Structure formats: C-alpha cells, structure tokens
C-alpha cells in the first residue's frame, strides 16, 4: 500500500507538484481577505446566554467600551491637585472630546462632571466641577475638597491617593480603540506637563494585542521555520532535500489559513497560532521519512526503490500519528468556545493535508532530485556520522546505549516513573485556573505598566455589573384591567358607555411600544386619559379621572427602584462587598441618591442617606437631573425604574478575582435573600472573561477525555492488541502528567493557551510511541527475539525520534522572545512536549517490555529470547 502510493507519486511527480501548487495558490489567494478579531467576548458564541445578557445590559444602561487615561503625579506634595497638573488634565480632556469616535456626552473627567453641593445653608448649586483650569493652588485645593465629597467620583476619577486622576473615554466602536489611543498619545506628547500618562482599558489592550499578534505571525512563525530548516540541514546535509519539508510545511500552513479565511472566519488570537502549530507537525512526518531515507540509502542505491521501501514501512505509523494528532485537535471542537473550535478544526484539516503531502509530495520531490544530489547527501551523512568514532556514529552509539540502559535498569526506571507520577499528581492538584487578557502582555509591556500603576492608585480599572431587575412587570397591564373594570361597570350602570373609548385609548397607547415597555405605555395612557377627561362630555369626566388615577398609581408602583427599600438592599450589598475587599469600589443609584440627598438637606455626612419615601427618592433624582449631565442617571437605572445596576470596579482582571466577587455576592444573597420578584444577573467584560474561562475548562476536560479514549481505541485498533494499545498511551500519559504537574508546582495558572495545548500534547506525544511500537513489532516478528527487536528499534527509528524531538524543541525557541505571553507559553510547551515525550518513550517502553515481555510478545518469543 505505502509502496504503491510512493511509486505512483514518484511516477506522476509532475502531477503531484501541479495539484499541490494549484491548491496552495487557490487557498493562498484567499489570505489577503484576512480580518483580525481580538475581542475576548467572541470567546463565547453570539447567542451564549451570559453574552446576550451582557450585551443587553450594555445597551440598557448605555454602557460603552472605555479607554482609560491615567495622569499620575507622585512628586508634587499635593499630588495631582496642583494648577499645572489640573490644567494639563483639563486640556487633555477637552482635546479628547474632539476626537472622532469618542462619545463626548459620556466622557468622564474632572473637566466634564458636575459638582452638586450645598454652597451655603439652604442654597444648592449645580455647576461644573472644573469649568476652567485652576490658576492658583487654592483653586486646586477647592477642587480636591469638592471631589472628595462625591463618592461617585472619588476613587474613580481621582485616586484616593490624590496622586492620580483618570479620564474615562467611551468610544463608539472597539475597533477604533488603537487609533483613538494613538491620537490621545499624540495629544499627550504635545502637553506641557511633567506628569506620567498611562493609557489602558480593555479595548486598548485588545486592539494592541491584535496589532502585535499580527507582527508575531509575521516574525515568530517564519523564525521558527528558519531554525527548523537549519537544524534539518545539520542532520541531513542536503539543501535540496531539506527544502522539501519546508515547502511541505509552507503548503500546509497556507492551505489551512487560506481555507479558514476563505470560509469567512476571522483570525482570532487562537487561529493566529495555527501556523506555529502546523509547522512542526508537518515537519515531523517529513523528518521520519527523510531520517529513514538517509539511514537506508547507500551510495548508488536507486532512490526510488529506497523511498518506496521507506514509505512502505512508515505509512502506517505516519497515518496513525497524523490521525491521533488531528483527533487531538478536532476534539477542541467539543469546547463551547468558537475561536477554539475553529482553531481545532483547521489544525486538524492541516494535519491531514500534511500527511497526504508527506506520502505523495515528499517521495515525488525526492524522485525529482538528480541522483547526484541524493548520493551527495547520503555520503555526507555517512561521513558526518562516521566522523564521530570508529564504525558507529555518535547518535547511533548513544541511542543504542540508551536502549541497553533502559532494558538493563528496568526496575529502577519504572520505580522512578511511578515516583514521577506521584509528584505529577501532586503538582496537578496545585494547578489553579486563571486568566486575564491583560496578562497576555509581558510584565514590562506599556499596557501592563499602565495597568499596574493605575490599579495601584485607583479603586480598579476592571469593571463588572450586577443588575437587579423587578420581574413582575408583565402583570401590570393585567392589574390595570382588573382595577379599571369596576369603574367601567359603574359608568355603564350610570348610563355612560365609555368602555369602547377605554379600549380604544388603551390600544392606542400600546401601539408603538413593545410589551416590555409598560412604563411608556402607561405614560401614553395617562396623556390620553387626561385629554379624554377634558374633552369628553362633562358628566363622564369623573370616570376618566378615576381611570387616570388608577393608571398613575400603577405607574408609580412599577417604579421599583425608586423605593427606599430597593436602594437600601443595593447599598447594603455594596457596603458588604467593599468592607470585605472583594471589590475596589462600587457605585449605584443608591450612592447617587444619598449624595444628592445630603447636599439637598444639609451637606453634612449625617444626611448621606436614602430618603424615607419613594417621592423623596424621585425628587432627589429630579434634582440630580437638573445638572449638566442628566443622562448619566441611565447608567444606573432604567427609565422605567424596573432595573438598576451596580457598577463594580475591580483592581484585578484575574478570573480568580472575579470569581471571588461572584462567590461573595452569592454568599450575601444567601444571608440576605433578594427581595421577592427581583432577579439578579451579571454583566461586564471581566465577568464575561470568567464565563468563557469556565466554559473552556469544562470543554477542555471533555475534549481531553474524549480524545484520550479515541486515541486509546485507535492504538488498540492499529496494533490489533489491547496491551500494545495501552502501552502506546502510557508515555503520553506520563508526559502530560509531568508537564501539568510541573506547571502546578511552579505556579503557572491554567489559562487559555495552556488549556488548548492539552489536546495538542495528546496528539503529538503519542507519535513517538506509535513509531516505536510499530517498528518493534515488525522486528520482533522477523527475529522472534524481543531483545534484538528492541536493539533494532534503537537504531534508525530511535534516531528519527531523537532528531525529531531536537528539531522541534529547538525550532520553537524563537517563540520565547515574543512579547505576547501566549506565544511564549506555546513555545515552551511544544518544546517540552517533544523533548519529554521522546525521553519518556525511549526509556519507558523498553523498561516495561523488559519487565513483562510475555505479556506483549507471548510466551514463545519471551522464552526464545531468554534462551538465546
């Protein structure tokens, strides 16, 4: 079969080249359509309930993505509150307002907010906090006093250290954040200021990540390719020959990426890593083929014959290793994370394409080479290997020694492996799950620096929202009808047929409003009833007035978050969260109402409280609305007062931090149940990150388990032997356990890249065992002696394994220089998997075989071997 494929490909090599080229060109032409997607929100499907709710919350409360600009002055004794710093802040804020794409009316800074205060007993003032930059220290001081009095802003717009101030810049579209941030930086560069400026915020981080990710795709992957190329050149000593796997790898990468882009998928951070994953996998197969070819070919041999034999002996393990690898990746499609699914699917496709090329293109390529080139390569490899020592080469001698070592010290080795498993299990139990898109940048990246500095000073730049909703609103219209009924009956009894008019008015008020817009419907109805009362015959007016007051009462009752008890519940929850340091700060309608109430009543701290009656709350809010920014109210409450939000500021974007807040809120709810008829939901990007992280861990567990079962089944099928099937997966089990164990021991959190790599490691690390066992069994069948079979495996097959491990491990070192942490993680991981699984395979398999040979080879061979 393998022979057949190889012969066919070599005979029709120009066809093979032509078809390969056509596929590569066709898919390659699709690549320019590439669009980048760095939005972590897309880690969840668009219809995922938490994401839907998050978007609904953003829309309902007019919440936009924010760029955060921080101004820090740690030198001046008054911190940021000096005329020069505040003037710079003022100028900066004014200039940012003019940038295209900035939502001016929602911008928050000292220069854009109102100061509501009781300026003298009995007199309240609504005025800009900083209508012009202060010119004296005294003016700066008074701004400080004013802001310190406003809990809504102190800790948010000005750090409680007084050394930093923030400008919150809402933007229309996340995709614009890099441009806007760049323009802001341009303004900052022109400012006459000695302060430190930092630009951060989730959208900036994302957009910057996208830009740098693109650079990485253009730098890291080719660099890795180059290194792999040089290493192969070292082993195979033939430029033309080594060009083949490189071409093959490039063809695979281009085809997979072209297909992905051509099918309309965006290139997410995950998919940007496809080339990096595909390159080694594609090259691995080629190395097995070339390694075997170089070892077998003698000067003067017919290269086509040799190649046909090579493919014949390798096609099975090659196909199976490719299948297991693609199963490992395809299992990612079980995760509920679309970018991970796409990544898994297209790597799987790429792997399958690579194996097709390895079995066809590679032989065709070798066949196309002049015999001279092949002879040259063969003799150079020989000379090189022989230049080591005597008759044997250094690698050959080392590998044979390794094989002998493993069989001779089987028991201590197995004990060591068992010990390692114990350590690994301990380490795995230390693993904690955590991710934070900000940490995808290295420690010294300006975004990390900004993040660190600003969160040191401020209550927190990461946001989450708790939304409370009164859910019994739907009943209101029913209640209305119920209460209207007696009035209509009474009117009929008194001889006034107003029911028809009532139905008509009700219907008119409903039209134009959705079922959920009960508040707006009731408002319409009140207008109409009032008109009706005035225009209807005089003796009917009383009924209409009655209906009007019924409607009015229902309208008021529906406004749940104008009720003092509703605000008090939120306030208590916030206090509880803040006191226990779960959140840096929280803000809600309760804070707003209490602040305005204080300024209306006396301006003294004892009046920082929620009014006793709903009307008091309503009038406090009405007073607040008489400011320059009445629409800010709607960030905290819906216009029908049926929903309210609590804005939480977290000093850390770690999923763990978010999880502890969620747990704390749950605990609070356990002790203080939500008021009846009130539901609670979560929103905010920090929360969304937590959700997809959770889904990913769950999904990865499923993917890893199903892939393991599948790989085991395939092994049993391949070897048609249960024990060999199990034997094949033992090295990979230890490899994965060790890698994750070490991860747990050194405290590296289980994050997105790590999660994805678990499936990859499964598919890759079984490869060596397949090659090992396949060859071992062939040799054992031939010689009838398992010791000789092992010795034979430690010749050419072991060398191929070792060369592979070295090439891939070293080939990925350039990734360690990447500025983006996920790339570094991938580099380290890939290198460790290849190196470790090679070592484990080569030591563990002979040791196990040596310990219980009869289990694997049957009594006969075991006895025969013993006797020899």
């Amino acid at each position, binding site marked *: 079969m393998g022979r057949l494929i190889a012969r066919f490909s070599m005979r029709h090599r120009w066809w093979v080249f032509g078809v390969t080229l056509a596929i590569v060109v066709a898919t390659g032409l699709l690549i320019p359509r590439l669009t980048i997607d760095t939005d972590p929100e897309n880690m969840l499907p668009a219809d995922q309930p938490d994401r839907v709710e998050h978007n609904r919350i953003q829309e309902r409360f007019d919440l936009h993505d924010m760029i955060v600009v921080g101004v820090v002055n740690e030198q001046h004794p008054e911190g940021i509150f000096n005329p020069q710093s505040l003037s710079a802040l003022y100028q900066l804020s004014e200039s940012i307002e003019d940038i295209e794409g900035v939502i001016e009316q929602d911008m928050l800074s000292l220069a854009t907010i109102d100061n509501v205060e009781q300026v003298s007993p009995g007199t309240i*003032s*609504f005025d800009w906090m900083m209508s012009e930059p202060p010119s004296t220290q005294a003016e700066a001081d008074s701004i400080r006093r004013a802001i310190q009095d406003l809990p809504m802003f102190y800790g948010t717009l000005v750090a409680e250290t007084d050394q930093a101030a923030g400008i919150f810049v809402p933007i229309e579209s996340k995709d614009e954040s890099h441009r806007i941030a760049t323009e802001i930086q341009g303004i900052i560069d022109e400012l006459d200021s000695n302060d430190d400026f930092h630009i951060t915020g989730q959208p900036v981080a994302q957009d910057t990540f996208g830009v740098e990710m693109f650079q990485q795709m253009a730098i890291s992957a080719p660099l890795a390719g180059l290194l792999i190329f040089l290493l192969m050149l070292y082993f195979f000593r033939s430029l033309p020959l080594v060009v083949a796997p490189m071409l093959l790898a490039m063809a695979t990468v281009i085809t997979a990426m072209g297909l992905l882009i051509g099918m309309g998928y965006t290139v997410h951070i995950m998919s940007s890593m496809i080339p990096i994953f595909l390159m080694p996998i594609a090259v691995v197969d080629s190395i097995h083929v070339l390694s075997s070819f170089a070892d077998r070919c003698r000067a003067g041999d017919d290269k086509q014959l040799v190649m046909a034999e090579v493919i014949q002996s390798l096609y099975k393990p090659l196909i199976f290793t490719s299948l297991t690898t693609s199963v490992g990746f395809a299992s990612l499609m079980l995760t509920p994370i679309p970018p991970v699914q796409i990544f898994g699917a297209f790597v799987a496709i790429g792997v399958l394409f690579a194996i097709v090329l390895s079995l066809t293109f590679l032989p065709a390529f070798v066949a196309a080479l002049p015999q001279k080139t092949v002879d040259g390569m063969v003799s150079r490899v020989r000379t090189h290997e022989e230049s080591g020592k005597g008759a044997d080469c250094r690698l050959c001698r080392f590998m044979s020694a390794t094989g002998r070592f493993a069989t001779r010290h089987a028991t201590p080795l197995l004990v060591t492996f068992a010990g390692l498993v114990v350590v690994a299990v301990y380490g795995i139990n230390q693993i904690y799950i955590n991710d934070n898109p900000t940490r995808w940048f290295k420690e010294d990246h300006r975004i990390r620096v900004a993040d660190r500095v600003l969160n040191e000073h401020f209550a927190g730049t990461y946001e989450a929202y708790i939304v409370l909703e009164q859910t019994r609103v739907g009943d209101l219209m029913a209640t209305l009808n119920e209460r209207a009924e007696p009035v209509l009956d009474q009117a009929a009894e008194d001889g006034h047929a107003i029911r028809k008019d009532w139905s008509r008015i009700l219907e008119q008020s409903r039209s134009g409003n959705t079922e959920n817009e009960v508040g707006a419907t009731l408002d319409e109805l009140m207008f109409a009833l009032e008109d009706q009362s005035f225009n209807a015959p005089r003796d009917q007016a009383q009924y209409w007035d009655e209906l009007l007051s019924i409607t009015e009462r229902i309208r008021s009752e529906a406004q749940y978050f104008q009720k003092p008890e509703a605000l008090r519940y939120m306030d208590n929850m916030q206090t509880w969260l803040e006191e226990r340091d779960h959140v840096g700060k929280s803000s809600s309608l309760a804070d707003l109402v209490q602040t305005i109430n204080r300024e*209306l009543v006396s301006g003294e701290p004892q009046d920082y409280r929620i009014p006793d009656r709903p009307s008091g709350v309503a009038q406090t809010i009405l007073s607040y609305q008489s400011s320059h920014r009445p629409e800010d109210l709607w960030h905290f409450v819906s216009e029908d007062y049926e929903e309210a939000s609590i804005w939480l500021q977290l000093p850390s974007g770690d999923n763990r931090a978010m999880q502890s807040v969620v747990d704390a809120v749950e605990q609070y709810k356990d002790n203080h149940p939500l008021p009846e008829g009130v539901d609670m939901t979560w929103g905010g990007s920090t929360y969304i990150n937590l959700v997809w992280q959770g889904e990913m861990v769950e999904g990865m567990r499923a993917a890893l388990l199903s892939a393991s079962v599948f790989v085991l089944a395939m092994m049993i099928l391949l070897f048609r032997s249960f024990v060999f099937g199990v034997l094949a997966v033992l090295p990979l089990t230890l490899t994965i356990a060790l890698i994750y164990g070490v991860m747990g021991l050194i405290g590296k959190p289980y994050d997105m890249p790590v999660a994805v790599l678990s499936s990859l490691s499964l598919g890759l690390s079984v490869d060596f065992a397949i090659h090992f066992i396949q060859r071992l069994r062939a040799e054992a069948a031939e010689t009838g002696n398992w010791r000789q079979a092992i010795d034979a495996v430690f010749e050419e097959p072991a060398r191929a394994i070792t060369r592979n491990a070295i090439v891939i491990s070293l080939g990925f070192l350039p990734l360690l220089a990447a500025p983006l942490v996920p790339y570094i993680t991938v580099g380290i991981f890939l290198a460790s998997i290849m190196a470790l699984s090679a070592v484990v395979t080569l030591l563990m398999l002979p040791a196990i075989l040596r310990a219980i040979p009869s289990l694997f080879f049957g009594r006969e061979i075991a006895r025969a071997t013993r006797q020899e």
Partner: protein
Amino acid sequence: MKNRVLRTLVIGLGLAATAFAPAASAQDRPSTMEIVKRANQASFYAGDDGRTEARMRIVGSSGREQVRQFTMLRRDGDQGRQQYLVVFSRPADVRGTVFLVEKNPGADDNRWLYLPGLDLVRRIAPGDKRTSFVGSHVYYEDVSGRDIQADEHELIETTDEHYVVRSTPKDPDSVEFAYFDTRIDRDTFLPMESEYVNADGKIYRRMKIEEVKEIDGYPTGVRMRMEDVANGGHTLVQFRYNAYDLGIPESVFSERSLRNPPREWLQRPER
C-alpha cells in the same frame, strides 16, 4: 451691534400684540435690535401675565422616554423683570415639586425649589443656567429666556417669512455654543427655529416651534421641539390651556407658594 435676542424656548409664550404692527413689510424693515427685542417680547412677555400647562416628552439619545407635566404661571414686572412659578403634577412621585424664578435681565436670577417628598425649600445658587431643566433637553435658560444683552446680534438674512439673526456670546467662556442662528417669523416675531453651533462650526442643538396658535390675541407657540443634534434625543413640549392677562397677583410668586401652591391659579380654566 447692540441687539437683542430672542430665545429659543417659548414657554411663557404669547406675544405682545400691542408691541408691533402685525405685518412688517420689506420696506419698513425694523432694525436688528428691534427684531430681537420684539422676538423676545413675543416669546416671553406676551400679555402682562400668563398661564400654561406643559406636557413634556423626553426622548433620550438611546430612545428612552420620560414624561414631565407642570403648570407654569408668569407675571411681568418692570424693566424686563419677570416671575415664574412652575408646579409639577407628573410623574406622580414628583407632584407638588415647585420652582420659583425671579428673572432679572442683566443680573443673576433668583431661583427656589421646593421638594415635597423631602419637605425642603432650597435656593438654587446663581450659576450656570445652561443646565438641564428636570432632565429634559431644555435648559433653565430656555424656560425663562436668555438675556438679550448677553449676545451680539446680527441680521444675516431676510427671507419672505423670516428674519435670520445670528447671536454671538459676549462672553464665549460662559456658554457651550460659538453662536446661534434664529429664524424669526416676520409676522408674529416668534422665533420659529434656533440652531446652536459649536466651535467646530457644527450644529449640535436645535429648537423648533412646530405649531403656533393665537390665544387671547397672542400668537403662541404651542408645540416646541428641542433636539440634541450631536447625541440624538429630543424633548417635545406641548403647551396647553394657555391664557393671558389673568391678573395674577404678585403674592402668588412668593416663597409661601412653594409649600402652598396657589390652587385657584393653577386650576385648568373652565371650558
């Protein structure tokens, strides 16, 4: 140029029919100052006093709606001074909230506020009058009229129907606009439309009178729309049950009325 402006908002409405000849022809065109004065008169000083019931529908930039309903009484004094009493009836939770304003052209206005839910009377500090009026797109200053002396006025166009006057603030730092253009009806002198232009030359805010009725002999804007052009959103105000020259006594506009609104003057006139 020393002219006057008319102000956008037309709450007080009414127009001094006595103050001008109803049809100014192109030949005897009044001076810019006269136009502005007359417009101011028409929109804020109709009659000696007035009463109106306003119904406001506030539509925010993202489409959220609120309503406000209030009755407004007005009485003119000497030298352009005026008193306003604004009593809220809806939403129900703010019923009885009262604003009392003493307008002093050329000086600070006196403003008081009564909040029945907190039982508080508070003076509102003289300061920026370009803040939202109870959450609408209308500013306080639009309600009682911007001082015509605060701007320079220039007649930039005369059409068949309108005088177009451009008003440029004398103290640009005190306001958010660079200038505003007003189209004044040549017959009624009602300012039918004002467009506010920012420093970038963009129109960001627009007032429009959508319906005029003659009431007690005074052309009166009875439907007005204030639009936030920059961010979206608008406020529609209907003025209903208007009446002029009622003989409202000065005592109605005292601090006493804050806690005890003058029922007889607030009541809707009989049909």
